[in-house]
């Protein structure tokens, strides 16, 4: 593994300096987990170029910059600044985090049913909540990847969402992680824990939003556990600042007949890596992973997904679509593993890429690892362009070249956006997509 490099010692120092002030420092189990995770990160280090999981994504730019921990300073953002990014219809429980910390003034948590917890993680850690102790780090194992380890050691905030058996959280929970102008040089480590008890239902929206031009690093981890018959739906919208680094891990763990749907929409940021994993650990579990990634200029966006079929009779569906323009680079690595006892698995995974410009590149790799024989597993990956015939058809109807082109690009992306069930989010995504399409006629054909 990695030798102790300078960046590693930088983060060791950060941890050492902040140890006593990090949320939950006074709680034994919290402090102990942070300590162990830091040791793990030190052992793992930043993954190098020879690490197969990072073959196409270099982390040098993050390593080179020693990102500091968030400062406890005013950010100067008010409700009007955020208004365009909020969803008021339907009603949501809203938790706003700015530059690494929960902001109570900007947040609004509505009436909660009996037994339901919706709390900033910092508060839950400070209180050393028993219910959190049983879940934190159980699905996103700090032993696993360096960034889950580092996140566990340095996590400053996020949400703890616990809906016990039989309860339903009517409103979606909207988590808004905002990076202000003042965040330059800062690394934020958000941690979210979603726990749905038997038959419970959770819908969560994770918005990552960069409002300025700052260069910062978001290292987010979300772990979600769906017990028997539970349903969790997560919308992750990544709209970081243009020079931001964004690494995010989602770890799902599913019981019998549970359902997890994860929408991963990646629009901005300079260097983006998403790891979306789930383990189907009881019969009848269902997972659906939807992804859309847009790359332009010199953006680099890497999506790694892993679906682990551990038990019989589970179903997985995955569709990731990428649109790469400018000098951007897209990476997709989707792995489906079917363990020997996971008979009657039904799995389908598709990755479609639209390569729009000469300087763009895409590296898709759909992987299957199958150890059971009574299985239906398929996957597919394509790289292509806009259909010339379709372009011609639209032009013959009087659309200009760029209108026709944009319409087709929009249509390509829309398959993912259509899967978004919450109307205002869908509308907002459509808007954002239209803005991202090339506006001028000067685009090359």
């Amino acid at each position, binding site marked *: 593994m990695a030798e102790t490099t300078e960046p590693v010692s930088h983060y060791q120092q950060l941890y050492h300096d902040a140890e006593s002030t990090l949320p939950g420092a006074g709680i034994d189990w919290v402090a102990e987990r942070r300590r162990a995770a830091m040791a793990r990160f030190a052992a793992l280090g930043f993954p190098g170029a020879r690490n*197969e999981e990072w073959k196409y994504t270099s982390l040098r730019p993050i390593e080179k910059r020693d990102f500091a921990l968030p400062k406890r300073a005013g950010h100067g953002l008010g409700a009007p600044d955020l208004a365009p990014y909020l969803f008021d219809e339907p009603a949501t429980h809203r938790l706003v985090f700015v530059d690494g910390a929960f902001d109570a003034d900007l947040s609004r948590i509505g009436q909660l049913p009996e037994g339901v917890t919706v709390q900033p993680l910092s508060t839950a850690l400070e209180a050393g909540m028993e219910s959190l102790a049983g879940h934190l780090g159980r699905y996103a194992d700090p032993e696993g990847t360096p960034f889950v380890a580092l996140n566990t050691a340095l996590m400053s905030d996020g949400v703890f969402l616990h809906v016990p058996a039989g309860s339903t959280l009517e409103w979606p929970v909207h988590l808004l992680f905002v990076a202000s102008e003042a965040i330059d040089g800062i690394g934020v480590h958000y941690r979210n824990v979603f726990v749905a008890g038997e038959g419970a239902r959770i819908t969560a929206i994770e918005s990552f939003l960069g409002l300025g031009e700052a260069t910062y690093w978001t290292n987010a981890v979300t772990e979600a556990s769906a017990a028997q018959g539970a349903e969790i739906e997560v919308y992750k919208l990544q709209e970081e600042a243009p020079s931001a680094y964004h690494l995010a891990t989602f770890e799902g763990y599913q019981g019998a007949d549970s359902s997890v749907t994860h929408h991963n929409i990646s629009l901005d940021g300079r260097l983006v890596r998403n790891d979306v994993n789930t383990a189907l650990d009881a019969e009848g579990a269902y997972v659906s992973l939807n992804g859309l990634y847009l790359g332009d200029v010199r953006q680099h966006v890497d999506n790694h997904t892993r679906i682990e079929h551990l038990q019989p009779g589970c179903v997985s569906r995955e569709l990731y679509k990428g649109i790469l323009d400018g000098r951007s680079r897209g990476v997709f690595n989707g792995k489906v593993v079917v363990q*020997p*006892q996971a*008979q009657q698995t039904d799995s389908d995974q598709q990755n479609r*890429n639209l*390569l*729009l*410009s*000469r300087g*763009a*590149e*895409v*590296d*898709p*790799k*759909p*992987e*299957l*690892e*199958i*150890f*059971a*024989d*009574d*299985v*239906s*597993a*398929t*996957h*597919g*990956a*394509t*790289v*292509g*362009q806009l259909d010339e015939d379709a372009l011609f058809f639209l032009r013959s109807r009087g659309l200009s070249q760029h209108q026709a082109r944009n319409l087709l690009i929009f249509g390509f992306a829309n398959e993912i956006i259509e899967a978004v069930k919450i109307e205002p989010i869908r509308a907002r995504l459509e808007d954002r997509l239209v803005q991202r399409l090339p506006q001028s006629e000067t685009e090359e054909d």
Partner: protein
Amino acid sequence: MASSQLEEVLNKGYEPGFYTDIEADAVPPGLNEDIIRMISEKKEEPEFMLEWRLKAYRQWKEMTEPRWANIRHPYIDFQDIVYYSAPKSFSDEDRPESLDEVDPKLLETYEKLGIPLEEQKALAGVAVDAVFDSVSVATTYKEKLAEQGIIFCSFSEAVHECPELVEKYLGTVVPPGDNFFASLNSAVFSDGSFVYVPKGVKCPMELSTYFRINAADTGQFERTLIIADEGAQVSYLEGCTAPARSENQLHAAVVELVAEEGAEIRYSTVQNWYPGDEDGRGGIYNLVTKRGECRGNDSKISWTQVETGSAITMKYPSVVLRGDRSVGEFYSVAVTNNYQQADTGTKMTHLGRDTKSTIISKGVSARYGQNSYRGLVQVGKNAENARNYTQCDSMLMGDTCGAHTFPYIEAKNPTAQLEHEASTAKIGEDQLFYLAQRGINPEDAVSMIVSGFCKEVFQELPMEFAVEAQNLLGVSLEGSVG
């Protein structure tokens, strides 16, 4: 699944597992510069060959054995291998000049394997080069081919008879420092086949090489070089077997294909090295480098492989599509039964304009077999209008085996159209039941279903081979139905 029936089907022996007791002339085990000099001397090679070997050896010494493939095996002790072994009768001054002088024991060996070397008995239309351990024992139809200017001979002969061609092409597709096993081969390769088809000539018959490992503790390191000059066409087949032994033996070959403008090369392999016994003891480590280069415009290279043997296989027959409008194809059936492990696939490197590649891969795993498809489709910045279609299907028999797919795609050109598809299938009880109802015994039923699964690949094989491949598949899977 009807396990006892399947079990029965999976347990048929490895028929070519016999050993021919023949006096051998071998170098001592181990590898160093002296051994390489010794091999080069035995083969009376020109100076440039020795230099080339030594250079490769020096590169090899700096490399480490690759461990990235999805296979598990102990590290190989390269000092414990005999790098050259030839039947004694071939090392004497009076080595056989014609087939009549060849040791009858050798001819018998090939006879027993179903490869008659006497031309009158041979299948019409197939010329054979027979390689036994480190030497080529006979090449049939040489004269007939020579009439059209086609050179088909053992590599050793080529080094003497057309050194300028060897020097011009050797190592230009697979350079001596390409990878660990290719470097090792470059240093110690003993024999193999050499084919040169001149401009505009369409080779009138199938060319084939039959490789046989016989001696114990030896490795086989053959090297094949096929050149199809402008507008030429050739179809080449290779087959391979080895005695059943409880130790592992190494086979590290290199195959280089060069297709000049408008040329077409079809290369088919039926690989049936000894796979080891049902407890995973013994068997060949088949670690080979095969690569073709479509050097000229409008050229085409097509690989077809049926991989049923070997304990371990790491093999990626590839095509570099350098010429404009060139075409690369890869058709593969890989079977892993018992404790066999295969990590195989292809690499299509699109560099020229309007290049096309097709990949069809079928993996069958049974018992504890592990079968991986590993492929790379690469489209360079200037490879306008590249097209690739990839399909890899797996079939599993039982829940103790595994099928893995690792397809890499790297697209750097916005006009590329690449498609990859994969699926898994199994032999359904309903299928077996249906066939049983019609009086077909389970053994034939399994064989029939698997043949159907592999049909797209078999139909790419030359007729003689297609029949052999079908039979081989039946044998390889014997007892695997469980």
